[in-house]
Every structure is written in C-alpha cells, then in structure tokens.
C-alpha cells in the first residue's frame, strides 16, 4: 500500500510539541538563574548565569517537611487502595451475585462525583471524627476517591484472565480464596501497577482535600506549599518555579519507570 506522509498532521503535532515544550523549557531555565537576572532578561531568554540557590531556597522554606508529609499520604493511599480494590475487582469479575453488580454500578456512579461536591460534608465529617488537621483526615477521603477508577482499571485487567484457568482450579477444588491469591493476584500484575501509579498520582497531586482539611505547617502537603509560596512570594518567580520543579521530580521518576503501566491502563478507560 502506498503511503504519503501526512504533512499537515506532522506540522500540527510539532506546533503542539512547541506549546507543551516551551513552558517546560522556560520553567527549567528560569530556576537556574538568579532572581534579578530573570526579572531583567524576561522568561524567554538564554540563561547567562547559573545558580542553584532557587532550589536550596525552596527547600529551606519548608519543602522538606511538605515532601515528607506528601510521601506519607501517598504511601498510605496506595496501601489502602491495594488492600481494598483487588478483592473488590475479583468479586466484580467472578461473582455471580446480584449484589455485586449493584455494587459495581455504585462505583461507576462514583466516577462522576467530583471532590468539590462533597467537600462541605467532608469537612463536617472529618471535624466530627477529630481528624481535622491530621494527615489521616486527608488520606481517607483521597483513597476513597481513588476507588472507582481503580476498580474499573483492575476489573478490566482481571477480565483478561482466561476462564479455563479458573475452571482448572475449580476442578482441583480450589476455594475462591486460593484462586484469588494463587491465580488472580499473580496474573493481574499489570493492572495492579496501573492502579498503584494512578493512586500515587492522585495522592501526590491532591489539592482540595488538604486545602480544606488541614491547617498547620506540620501537616502541609506539597501542593499547598506551592499555593502558599505563590500567594506569599509571588514576585520571586524563579524560586516559585524551582518549587514547582521539585514537586514534579518524584512524579517524573515514577513515570520514567512505570510509563507503560500508566499509559496502557488509562488508554483502556476510553477504549473499552
């Protein structure tokens, strides 16, 4: 089959590359310049002097603590998702109970609930539970809002396990529990890594729950740190952008190693 290159699409994609790439380039260049030089030369210029003081400055204004807090929240959210979602997805895929299909509908409905819709009662609930300004008060709702998408992704992955394998194990008289641990969990590695990366991203980038449910410096997360930095030192743009870059580093590292898991999983969301 004869193939002509599609120049129009090629040019379009290059324009988009420029739109995505330019801000990222400007950001990186800005962070390695002293603040005074940045103000003089403007954002789109070649850096003539190099410094790392913006990064050390950001770190000294509390970002170390915010990093640690965000890490704790992220790890706990991943833990909760890994504890709750695999049995749920297993039931969704393998159970014949009517209750299970109602439960699945509930989670799909949950996909459409935005965090803003529940933030007022969430504030009430978390305050009443004595978890206001406590990292646990951020972890619980964040994990809950990761469940619908994770259930959808993981049940999709578990459906790909061949039914013959279940039948073979049933012949051997295996219990659902044994099938879960010896068949389902080992064979859904791809789906599991997707939900880990997805929940990690949600937890790391979460903003509204920490904004409303925490208050003090000791429970501040990285996104809130950025927001406060912006409202307080908005004029120090290189310092601010250095903080943005710092907040991205772990995410980019994870992306480097788990790109396939994330992309494949998210692609399936629209395709299936």
């Amino acid at each position: 089959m004869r193939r002509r290159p599609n120049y129009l699409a090629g040019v379009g994609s290059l324009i988009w590359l420029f739109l995505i790439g330019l801000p990222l380039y400007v950001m990186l260049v800005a962070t390695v310049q002293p603040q005074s030089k940045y103000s003089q030369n403007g954002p789109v210029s070649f850096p003539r002097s190099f410094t790392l003081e913006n990064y050390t400055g950001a770190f000294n204004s509390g970002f170390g603590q915010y990093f640690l807090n965000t890490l704790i929240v992220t790890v706990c959210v991943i833990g909760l998702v890994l504890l709750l979602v695999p049995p749920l997805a297993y039931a969704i895929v393998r159970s014949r109970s009517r209750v299970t299909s109602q439960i699945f509908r509930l989670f799909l409905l949950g996909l459409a609930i935005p965090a803003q819709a529940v933030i007022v009662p969430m504030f009430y609930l978390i305050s009443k539970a004595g978890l206001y300004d406590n990292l646990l008060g951020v972890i619980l709702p964040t994990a809950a809002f990761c469940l619908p998408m994770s259930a959808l992704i993981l049940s999709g992955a578990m459906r790909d396990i061949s039914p013959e394998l279940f039948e073979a194990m049933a012949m051997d008289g295996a219990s659902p529990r044994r099938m879960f641990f010896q068949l389902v969990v080992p064979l859904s590695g791809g789906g599991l890594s997707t939900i880990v990366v997805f929940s990690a991203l949600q937890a790391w980038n979460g903003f509204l729950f920490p904004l409303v449910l925490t208050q003090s410096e000791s429970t501040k997360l990285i996104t809130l740190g950025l927001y406060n930095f912006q409202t307080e030192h908005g004029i120090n743009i290189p310092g601010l952008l250095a903080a943005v870059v710092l907040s991205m580093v772990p995410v980019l590292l994870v992306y480097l190693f788990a790109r396939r898991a994330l992309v494949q999983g998210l692609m399936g969301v629209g395709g299936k």
Partner: protein
Amino acid sequence: MTTQMTSTPPAAGNGKTARRRPDGSYVAQVGRPGFAWALPATFFFAVFAIAPLIMVAVLSFMSWNGLGSPQWVGTDNWSRVLDDPVMIKSIWLTLLVTVLGVAIQTPLSILLGVWAAGQQRNRAVLSVIYFIPLLLSSTAVSVLWRALLDPNFGIPAQATWLFGDGNLFGKQASAIGVLAFVATWQFTPFHTLIYQGAARAIPSVLYQAAEIDGAGRYRKFFHITLPQLRNSIVTSMILMIVGGLTTFETVLILTQGGPGTDTTISAYYMYQKAFKSFDFGAAAAIALALVVAATIISLIVVRVSGYDKMRGTMEGLS
C-alpha cells in the same frame, strides 16, 4: 451518567459470560467468590463518598457556620443562592468555561490522538512528551502559567505587540481565555490518550477495504475513524464536562475569581461561601446544584449520542 458511558460495556460483557453457562447450577458456582469480597471497599466508599453526597443534599436545607450544630432552615439557602446576582453570573461563567473547554479540546485531542496512534517511532517519542502535563498537579500547572503570564515579568510583558498592555488577568475576556488555554494545555494530553487507545483498536481491515474502493485520507478519517471513535468521544466529552463544571484550582490560583467577580465560576464561589464566609448551607446548595447539572448534562450527551443504546462499533465486521 458516567455510569452509562464507562460502565455499560464491562457490565454487558459480564452478562454475556453469565449467560454462557446455566446460572445457579452447582458447577457454575464452584470457586466463585461471594459478594462479601466486595464489602470492605464498598463500606469504605460509602462512608467517604456516598454518605457525604447524601449529606450535601441534607445540608443544603440547613444553616451551619462550621462551628455549632446545623439548624434546619428549609429552602432558605436555595432562595438566597438563586437570588444572588453573583451566583447567576457564576452559572453562566461555568457554562462558558465548560463549553469552551469541550469545543477546543475535542477536535484537538481527536486529531492528536489519531495521529499518535500511528506506528512511527517519532510519534512514540512525542507521545512521551505530550503526556507530561498530565503528570503535573493542577496546582503546579496553575502556578507555572501564573508565573509565565505574570503582568510584569511574564511572556505577555515581553510581547506587548501581541498582548497589548500585557495584563491578561485584568480583563474578563482575556482572563477567561487564560483559563480555557490552561485547561486545554493540561487536559488535552489525557483525552489524546483516550483517542490514541481507541484509534489503535480500529480494525485495519476497514481501512484496507476503503483503500481498495479508492478512498482518500480525509474520506477514511470522516467515514471510518470518526464513527469508530463514537464511544470514546462520548466518554471523553462527559469527562470534559464534569471537569469543566468543577474547575477550581485553576481559578483559585490564576485569577482568584477576578477581575471583580468576572471569573468567579460556581465551584470557586462555593468554596468562598463555605470557607471564606462560613455560609456552609449556601455552599452545600451550590455543590448539589453542580452535581445535578453535571448529571443532567451527561445524561443528555448520552441520550443524544445514542450511547445508551450501545450501538456497537463493530457493524459490518462479521
């Protein structure tokens, strides 16, 4: 709403497997997990997502300042909110931002997604870069663009021939333009990914048949690719609508609702009502209105597109 769109396909698949073997027979039940396996997650989700959703409906009929106990006030919050000119304005702004988002992002992400679904190596590399905005938090994206568009030190201040006085945040039209642009920058990669996955799944026999019939590139795009992407278009549009109606961080960081109340969209107004004026009853009413609006609009999209009838995209393929 999203139920129909994302849900129905897997649910339908489930029904098929269930029908293959006789239900209720002993053999079919061996080694099948009971619903109890789903209960821990369901309980957790009910407490932290479903219960608050019900509570927001109840709270919208109560007065609460965040400290004491909520008091029943009937429809007082609703009549106050609906009489509030800022609220009415915020509804129009929310709709405007949402429509702009869908109108800009849908064609863009379909084109980029279909392009990226091709096989060449450079596309794979570019896709990796296109994906980056998706990894950044809304906070980081908003802070980044706030800095880049800064009236004094940003790009517009450098390119006054293009941006006039360089203060994009000072006028309503340009401030809304900034919000639409930043949303496009941030979310187009995600929708591109949806279309990329869907475009890869289109059977190549369709294109081969069309080529034998002498169809050109554009005919193939409009007569094969677009119809085959129908389900993904609905999925992606609903996600855009829900996302647009609940835009928040971008407004909080980029414009603070200003100039004046010119970019005060409903979700931001709700946040102000709750956590700045401590009028939690009014905030709950706005939140509930947002959920209802998102549900209705999504149902309309599903109905109009015929998605609920689940017409397969496999027609004409054995």
